[in-house]
């Protein structure tokens, strides 16, 4: 089984960080995986994105062009990638920042007001982790296991105080209905 995930949003929304967290989670679960960031002008042009592939088999191309899961954290990202999602796939939308609905009817869609919830938690920069929490909940290929271990890998020791905030955000998304 192979799950191709595309995180997309503005630079600064923690797109790469959320992807890295899932990549580490895959590593802890002894899965095959790859993580590939966009770099360069695209970051300035509006969308930053990050391809994460988690698989039971060796990963071929690390570029996700037809995602099983799309995390859209701004409108340009949804506009750009909505049509690329495979039929039967999943789209997670930050509904605080994206007002429109997903047009596709052959994919599962989850609207999470991640940016608003992050603000309410007092950690406005962690919308990325809230939406990731929801992804973990809804995506069969990704379990809740090893979550804290993976988080320890991406939250550097220097910023250990942010660990609880991140965990809190993930759980908030995980429990969001």
């Amino acid at each position: 089984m192979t799950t191709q995930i595309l995180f997309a949003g503005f630079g600064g929304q923690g797109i790469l960080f959320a992807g890295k967290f899932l990549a580490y989670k895959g590593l802890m679960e002894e899965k095959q995986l790859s993580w590939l960031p966009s770099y360069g002008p695209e970051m300035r042009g509006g969308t930053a994105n990050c391809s994460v592939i988690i698989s039971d088999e060796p990963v071929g191309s690390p570029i996700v062009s037809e995602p099983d899961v799309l995390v859209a954290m701004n409108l340009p990202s949804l506009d750009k990638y909505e049509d690329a999602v495979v039929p039967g796939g999943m789209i997670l939308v930050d509904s605080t920042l994206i007002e429109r609905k997903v047009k596709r009817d052959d994919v599962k869609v989850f609207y999470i007001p991640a940016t608003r919830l992050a603000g309410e938690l007092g950690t406005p920069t962690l919308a990325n982790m809230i939406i990731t929490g929801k992804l973990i909940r809804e995506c069969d290929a990704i379990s809740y296991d090893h979550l804290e271990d993976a988080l320890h890998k991406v939250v550097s020791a220097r910023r250990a105080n942010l660990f609880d905030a991140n965990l809190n955000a993930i759980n908030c998304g995980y429990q969001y209905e």
Partner: protein
Amino acid sequence: MAEKVLMKGNEAIAEAAIRAGCRHYFGYPITPQTELAAYMAKRMPKIGGVFLQAESEVAAINMVYGVASTGKRVMTSSSSPGVSLKQEGISYIAGSDLPALIVNVQRGGPGLGGIQPSQSDYYQATKGGGHGDYHLIVLTPASVQEMADLTSLAFDLADKYRMPSMLLADGTMGQMMEPVILPEEHVNRIDKPWAVTGTQMQRKHNIINSLYLVPEELERTNFERYERYAQIEKEEVRYESYMMDDAEYCLVAFGIAARVSKNAVVALRAKGVKAGLIRPITVWPFPKAPIAEAAKHVKAFVSVELSMGQMIDDIRLAQNCEKPVVLCNRAGGMIPDPAQIIAAVEALKGGND
């Protein structure tokens, strides 16, 4: 067994180089290889090594030349425009028969080009690059694991054959993270009696030099060097063959293009099309024999490249144009997707049937 860690390709090169005993790194900032220099800047001072940000790529490669003259393992890294600047120094290093590692994390060109991944420095890497008759051993990683493993190998081969080696990667390989098992610490201690370390008044002075004003002498050094190259072509070719046993269509691709091509092979096989892949791991020496062997049973080759078609020449030559070779490419920082490769093979199939 060693622990699997998650690393960016650029960082894996740096750590593998350190574990291969490299304690001297010289570079100049350029995207998309900056993580490599940053890693070295952080680590080298802690292990008694040298990280130096040179005033230019030109200076950096000449600092490499200096350290290589002393017989120690040394490297530099850059991306396409910066590697062009290093060509003079690389020619001197080759002409002085010195081992050193040059890493090129390629980006689109020509000129300032772009910063997205590319393979358009293939000619430069495999056909010499600078002035004069010479080659580099050129290794092309297709995973973060290979970024590490081939770095070790590149140092060993450079020492063994007394010549510069190059890791020819691209922006994707540099930027992506994958699990990697880092190579064990090792130093391939080959005796280097030619190195300049001071005579200690024990021997005649050593001279590191590429100047031979007597043409007969210069010719002799060239012939001797090419004898070594012939040995390398015989003994150091590396490639991966994927689903080639019964293949009718042979994709040839390296680096990121090979990763995408593998997906295409799987998809084509699922459709009943007998596709296979030859992935050169060394592009100099080029895996001529497996290509020639494949030509006996395939209907055609597809050269999948992130360039306007450079490796395609070597595929044609390797099999004396016996079977047609078509190009499936993107350029300027774009990457072909599996669908494009599948379409290219299906178009060939249509032509054949």
